[in-house]
């Protein structure tokens, strides 16, 4: 039976509650944002006792549905000051769903200096003092759980950055290879750290196959859905082979690859840091080009990247990370970028916020351009040990930019802008400006239609149609984020009608309901409106729905364009 697990860190108690009727049809992002909006005062301090941290598997998580074992983490973000929802893979979502928990709500804050581990099982949870894994990196923490609890336990944990409440800290989730997937953005690691929780481990014992209202229909729908994932060239072939890093060369050709802290749209050494080069290195060194981040994934965009001697360096080696270090920060050696990616995972920092911050620090003169070795030192020494310099860097891109009196600070709502320049790709600029999350490409991935010719074509260099494009994508994304499905199902969903049809059929067969496509769109709209209302009440008004001024003042090569979207047109985003 579905239930909500509440972990109160003020008085160290645990409660298992029935699911309120209003929440029964919700999962993933819809549920985390609904709970945060209902229970977290928008004006509270993100690291204070009134903030909560909510984990929720998606509506299809734990079933046999392909690509559905992601989950959401919601809270008030210490980076943006607004509502936050992150999505992550790993093994925990399926375990939590099969134990019958629709959500785990962590609330309150302990008074003393003691750190805790929360052990979740089918009957609830126990909160116990933790000393053994404190200050350990995430890889060692996962190993500790494998050895002392069991290899089949789920792990949700922090690195040193989260323990030190840094705004760049993420929350790490054990993946099928005992490596790390992340709730990356918005500093949620600091929220978990503020509650003095080093890790949440989840005992899978007693988990059950989830009930299906119509098993035959569910199976058929999953087969039809899965076929679309395999048939679409992007999800079926491209991502498997080259991973997301295939975008380095695409964005460079399109003139939208932000380079040297957003001063050019093309990068001279693009091929050295491209998905094609990554693939060649992986094959030559005995790595694996295709690899899943969570159970039941058919897309397999992850990979195992080895060094020249064939030793593991990193996995989940993403376009955004490679772009931020390689082009934005000018680190030309893909092997050094891979090593930095591994340290990001180990100390538990967002692999977008952190490298964009380093590029700003490079422009400030704190680090030479392209000096990956110096980045490694700063991560391993200053950020890991929380020296005053490490804390300054750990505050994120906006923090460092302000510390050095800079004007070219690529953030929206204080969150770092990712790997697509908004000046020559207007649609993604609308998403950065308007999403409730702070700058976040995944919130409404206009790159698909502006650049990749997926879901039609909208000219990236024109303002026409971009608000509508971003709005439709943001609504659809909020719905997908509520199912536990990987966002990459959007590639087939934008081109093959049977994809979304399969998703709706699975939802109906799982729960014995009669959702239509309009209902799913309605859910997406509802989620965005709940999040927007929270942000308005938190002080993130319409004046924060905009890009930094430098995009209006500085044109970018090769297209030599500025950001010139009318603010009123941008504000019309919320007319729905």
């Amino acid at each position, binding site marked *: 039976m579905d239930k909500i697990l509440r972990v109160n860190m003020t008085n160290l108690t645990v409660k298992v509650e029935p699911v309120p009727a209003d929440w029964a049809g919700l999962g993933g992002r819809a549920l985390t944002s609904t709970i945060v909006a209902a229970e977290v005062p928008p004006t509270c301090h993100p690291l204070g006792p009134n903030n909560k941290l909510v984990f929720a598997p998606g509506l299809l998580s734990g079933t046999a549905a392909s690509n559905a074992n992601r989950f959401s983490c919601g809270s008030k973000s210490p980076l943006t000051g607004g509502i936050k929802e992150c999505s992550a893979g790993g093994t925990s979502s399926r375990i939590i769903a099969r134990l019958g928990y629709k959500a785990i709500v962590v609330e309150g804050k302990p008074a003393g200096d003691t750190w805790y581990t929360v052990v979740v099982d089918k009957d609830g949870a126990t909160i116990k003092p933790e000393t053994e894994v404190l200050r350990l990196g995430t890889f060692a923490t996962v190993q500790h759980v494998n050895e002392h609890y069991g290899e089949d336990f789920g792990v949700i944990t922090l690195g040193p950055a989260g323990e030190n409440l840094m705004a760049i800290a993420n929350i790490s989730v054990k993946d099928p290879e005992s490596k790390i997937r992340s709730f990356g953005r918005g500093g949620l690691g600091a929220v978990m750290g503020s509650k003095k929780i080093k890790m949440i481990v989840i005992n899978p014992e007693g988990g059950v196959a989830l009930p299906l209202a119509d098993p035959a229909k569910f199976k058929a729908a999953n087969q039809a859905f899965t076929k679309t994932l395999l048939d679409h060239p992007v999800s079926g072939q491209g991502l498997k082979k080259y991973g997301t890093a295939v975008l380095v060369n695409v964005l460079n*050709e399109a003139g939208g690859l932000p380079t040297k802290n957003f001063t050019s749209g093309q990068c001279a050494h693009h091929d050295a840091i491209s998905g094609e080069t990554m693939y060649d290195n992986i094959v030559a060194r005995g790595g694996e080009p295709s690899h899943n981040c969570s159970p039941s994934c058919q897309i397999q965009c992850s990979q195992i990247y080895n060094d020249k001697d064939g030793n593991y360096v990193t996995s989940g080696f993403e376009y955004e990370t490679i772009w931020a270090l390689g082009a934005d920060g000018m680190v030309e050696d893909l092997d050094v970028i891979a090593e930095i990616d591994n340290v990001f995972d180990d100390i538990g920092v967002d692999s977008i916020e952190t490298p964009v911050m380093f590029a700003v620090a490079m422009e400030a003169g704190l680090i030479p351009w392209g000096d990956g070795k110096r980045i490694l030192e700063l991560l391993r020494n200053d950020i890991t040990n929380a020296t005053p310099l490490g804390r300054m860097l750990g505050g994120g891109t906006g923090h460092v930019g302000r510390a050095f009196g800079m004007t070219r600070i690529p953030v929206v709502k204080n969150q770092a802008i990712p790997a697509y320049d908004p000046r020559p790709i207007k649609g993604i600029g609308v998403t950065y400006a308007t999403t409730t999350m702070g700058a976040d490409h995944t919130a409404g991935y206009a790159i698909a239609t502006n650049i990749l010719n997926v879901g039609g074509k909208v000219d*990236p260099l024109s303002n026409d149609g971009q608000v509508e494009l971003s709005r439709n994508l943001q609504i659809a994304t909020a719905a997908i984020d509520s199912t536990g499905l990987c966002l*990459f199902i959007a590639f087939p969903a934008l081109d093959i009608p049977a994809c979304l049809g399969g998703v709706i059929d699975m939802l109906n067969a799982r729960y014995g309901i009669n959702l239509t496509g309009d209902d799913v769109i309605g859910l997406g709209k509802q989620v965005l409106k709940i999040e927007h209302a929270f942000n308005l009440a938190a002080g993130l008004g319409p004046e924060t729905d905009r890009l930094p001024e430098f995009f209006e003042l500085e044109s970018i090569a090769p297209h030599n364009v500025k950001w010139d979207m009318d603010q009123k047109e941008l504000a019309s985003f919320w007319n729905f």
Partner: protein
Amino acid sequence: MKITVKLFATFRQGRFKIAEQDVPEGTTIADVLDTLAIEVADVGMLFVNGRHAEPEQRLAGGVVLAIFPLVGGG
């Protein structure tokens, strides 16, 4: 006239990364694809000097033509 052709991802296999080509005046992108034995249906993105293009577009001398299969990420 001379143009520069850049290939990406799977299109590089058995072909090249970047090459300068001498083509007749009036050559279209489709003509170039034909000489490279790349099916139009397999093409995801075409860029001429960084701007999206369609197969029927005629090329001018000196342009850079970039040809991608259907790929994506995020």
